[in-house]
């Protein structure tokens, strides 16, 4: 039985529901082992307008069933991205979204304008887990108004599909989700990493040079499933589930919880074939249940 795996997510038709998550797949040029046929789409490493050096080492630390990272959004800046990577992407058979980052809503808008219409760039993912310098460093994603402002600014400056990637450390993710939907997002991605800290007993200082880092991996999966479910219940646009997906069963939890697609991040570090295995496992599950297509999967979305 062949299963129809394609899915429409926020203005993009993906051949399958498994997307490579930002920051865990570089610019798509590094991982040679991956079976690319399984990629629904790819989100590039987060980019700023200008080049960024990133944080000093140590940048990562392993934790129980997870890892903390503080890369500091190292990257070449948008011009180099357009020059060096977009032309390669233009030839690929899956869409590439660029993960955009800024310190002010205006910076996000400028990025959107610069990337609009560039061949090879199929869409934008707004990373709102960035400190808002105009609001004293509070994350954009923590405040529905700031999140909406960024989304609106980007929406105005581009015709590309706009996905907004939500931050998990908020009191009510539904409020932020609705604010972004109202501001013009085509899809939401839930969730980014949780802020965590690990202390080195020898130095009695944080292990990461940046002190805190973002927690990813299976440790956060139950939290991510809950938050993606809450977001999916709150809005009418598609939600892409992210957080600790290592195997097809994990992805299916998000899909059943109401997500249209999923992103796989940390898993790729442990298993460079993870995306292919997740994709194929979802197809096998659907086939075993006699479901002809992904869209026939039961979504668990009670609106009580």
């Amino acid at each position, binding site marked *: 039985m062949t299963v129809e795996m394609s899915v429409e997510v926020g203005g993009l038709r993906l051949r399958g529901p498994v997307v490579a998550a930002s920051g865990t797949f*570089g610019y798509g040029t590094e*991982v040679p082992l991956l079976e690319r046929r399984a990629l629904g789409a790819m989100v590039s490493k987060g980019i700023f307008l200008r080049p960024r050096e*990133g944080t000093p*080492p140590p940048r990562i630390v*392993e934790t129980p069933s997870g890892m903390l990272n503080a890369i500091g959004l190292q990257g070449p800046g948008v011009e180099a991205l357009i020059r060096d990577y977009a032309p390669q992407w233009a030839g690929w058979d899956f869409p590439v979204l660029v993960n955009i980052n800024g310190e002010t809503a205006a910076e996000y808008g400028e990025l959107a304008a610069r990337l609009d219409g560039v061949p090879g760039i199929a869409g934008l993912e707004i990373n709102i887990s960035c400190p808002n310098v105009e609001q004293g460093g509070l994350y954009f994603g923590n405040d529905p108004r700031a999140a909406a402002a960024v989304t609106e600014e980007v929406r105005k400056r581009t015709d590309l599909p706009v996905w907004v990637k939500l931050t998990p450390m908020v009191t009510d993710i539904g409020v932020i989700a609705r604010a972004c939907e109202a501001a013009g997002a085509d899809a939401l991605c839930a969730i980014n990493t949780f802020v965590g800290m690990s202390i080195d007993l020898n*130095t009695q200082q944080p292990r990461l040079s940046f002190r805190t880092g973002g927690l990813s991996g299976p440790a956060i999966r139950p939290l991510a499933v809950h938050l993606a479910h809450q977001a999916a219940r709150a809005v009418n646009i598609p939600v892409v589930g992210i957080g600790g997906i290592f195997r097809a069963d994990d992805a299916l939890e998000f899909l059943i919880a109401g997500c249209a697609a999923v992103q796989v991040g940390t898993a790729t570090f*442990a298993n460079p074939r993870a995306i292919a295995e997740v994709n194929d496992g979802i197809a096998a599950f659907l086939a075993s249940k006699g479901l002809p297509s992904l869209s026939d999967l039961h979504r668990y979305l009670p609106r009580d």
Partner: protein
Amino acid sequence: MFLLDGNMVARREVARGMFVLSVDAPQIADSVRAGQFVNLGWSPGPLLRRPFSVYRVDGDRIEVILKAVGVGTAQLLAMMPGETISCLGPLGHGFDLSPGPTSVVLVSGGLGVAPMPLAAREARAAGMHVTWVHGARTADELCTEADGDEVIWATDDGSQGFAGTAVAAVPDADLVLACGPNRMLASVASHWPDAQVAVETYMGCGTGVCLGCAVPLERGGYDRACKEGPVYRAADIDWSMLPAHLPYAISA
């Protein structure tokens, strides 16, 4: 780069608490160059793979050398021959041993001996005279498998060979290759700016996608140890910003 499920076939002790594991991994054994590494995973095991230099190659087998310094290395050493280890590699950019120099010194501290047997093999193939300088705290922590035309031992306590660090025991040569605690490599850098050193960093992916393995450069910015490294020209690294307190460094 290959991803193989390798059979662990043997283990031997080469110094107090220091073991060599042999793993069947034909394509990696065929293609690995000195200074490259493999990223090992196993189940049940830690979330992330663990990077290890390839120590030797024996037919279809690669060898890695290690001590138990944490959870992962302890689990690897508790494995029985017959168990499976997933091997991703060869990874990274190894030593440059193209013909030209007539003599090379391989300087290693503790587990820094790891990439040296392959380096000795390639150096000899390129016609170089190989001096092997290996240091440890004390005699029984020296890796007994020396492999040079000339061998110099160094121990901190003087219990075998030269009394002092490996670096202090290095003779003159055209080329210096070094591996060991980052502290030791910083000292190599101050003596021989052109030395090739294999550094260690924490690693997420080993394949260049996570940017977790940042190596601070003298010219500013960061390289990826897993891609542009782990071997660097000693003077190219900003040693003041490279952490010196990784567990491996502690145990070396």
